[in-house]
């Protein structure tokens, strides 16, 4: 049983690694679809909790992959998912950077970046929608989401403050 889960994790995250234009947030909907809808490794609510934990911890935010792997197959799953999420894009980047001068500012590289950008924005919008749906049970949580989005969009405060305040409010029980 376990090896096949590991195989699925590695295959899925390796594919997503090469799809994650604009960072890990763009592939959150697919991670969610696989983890919740296709393989039933966790519920919607658990996914929201794991995403929140990954987002509030220090380090790169693709580590939601680590937690999904951990939930699906324990420590081996966490390591496999992390490695699979990194390795393909790392190899591609390494290879392209070595050939940096040849690819620097070429017309096709710019066209690819500019062409992929709107698709990426649509994907990150999808992530936002699914996370709002998974996280906001009740109007108080929806207010937290809206306030955080407003602060992050209109001001230059470190977003960590929003997470700290929201976590604190939740801990004392005013959001329930």
């Amino acid at each position, binding site marked *: 049983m376990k090896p096949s889960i590991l195989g699925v994790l590695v295959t899925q995250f390796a594919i997503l690694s090469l*799809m994650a*234009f*604009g*960072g890990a947030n763009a592939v959150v*909907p697919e991670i969610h*679809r696989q983890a919740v809808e296709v393989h039933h490794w966790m519920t919607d609510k658990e996914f929201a909790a794991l995403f*929140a*934990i*990954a987002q*509030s911890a*220090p*380090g*790169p935010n*693709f*580590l939601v992959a680590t937690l999904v792997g951990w939930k699906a197959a324990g420590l081996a799953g*966490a390591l496999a998912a992390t490695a699979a999420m*990194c390795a*393909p*894009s*790392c190899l*591609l*980047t390494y290879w*392209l*950077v*070595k050939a940096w001068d040849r690819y620097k500012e070429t*017309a*096709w590289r710019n*066209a*690819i970046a500019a*062409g992929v950008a*709107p*698709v990426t*924005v*649509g994907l*990150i*919008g999808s992530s936002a*929608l*699914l*996370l709002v749906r*998974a*996280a906001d049970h009740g109007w108080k949580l*929806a207010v*937290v*989401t*809206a306030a*955080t*989005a407003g602060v*992050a*969009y209109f001001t230059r405060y*470190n977003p960590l403050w*929003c*997470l700290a305040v*929201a*976590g*604190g*409010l*939740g*801990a*004392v*029980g005013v959001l329930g």
Partner: protein
Amino acid sequence: MTDTPAPLEPDRAGRESAAPGPGALFLAFLGIAISGFGGVLPFARRMLVERRGWLSADEFNETLSLCQSLPGPNIVNLSIATGQRFAGARGSVAAVSGLVLAPMMIVIGLGALYGRFGGVERLQGAVMGLGAAAAGLVVATAAKMAEPLLRRRPWSAGPFIILAFAGVGLMHWPLPWVLLGLAPISIAIVWRLRAKAAP
């Protein structure tokens, strides 16, 4: 002993801007990773440009723009590029390890704690609050990325934003198919518009 890590050559001691070896790269990216709460990129700029002086501001921007146009987490790509530039393959491995290993262990630890104590009411409340705020951050990220695109080229970018959102966000279609279906058309349109605009 010959196996002490990274002996400093006398002429290099005290010159922080000299090409860093794998050990220095590992430590720099470890520092970036563990100070990077809520977004790592600002800390990467501070460390690589301001504190270590390994890259000029322009070099940093240039490297970052390449990394952002490639798939994969941007900061991971940046560690690969910076490591490669200064110490080849060993540098890349050192930099990406410094960036990923400690946060990965922290996240696994937090996940395990949550798995063990997830039933505790206060912790559940805190994670619910964090989840709502984290969702808000992603909403803001999407809005921040959409705004300049829609302002600069509403007719060539807008439809692809909407189609990608509809396919993945509303219809729950598999992301690889949506991406592979839309991106080539979008790229082709950008290419043609630029070819027309060029003198």
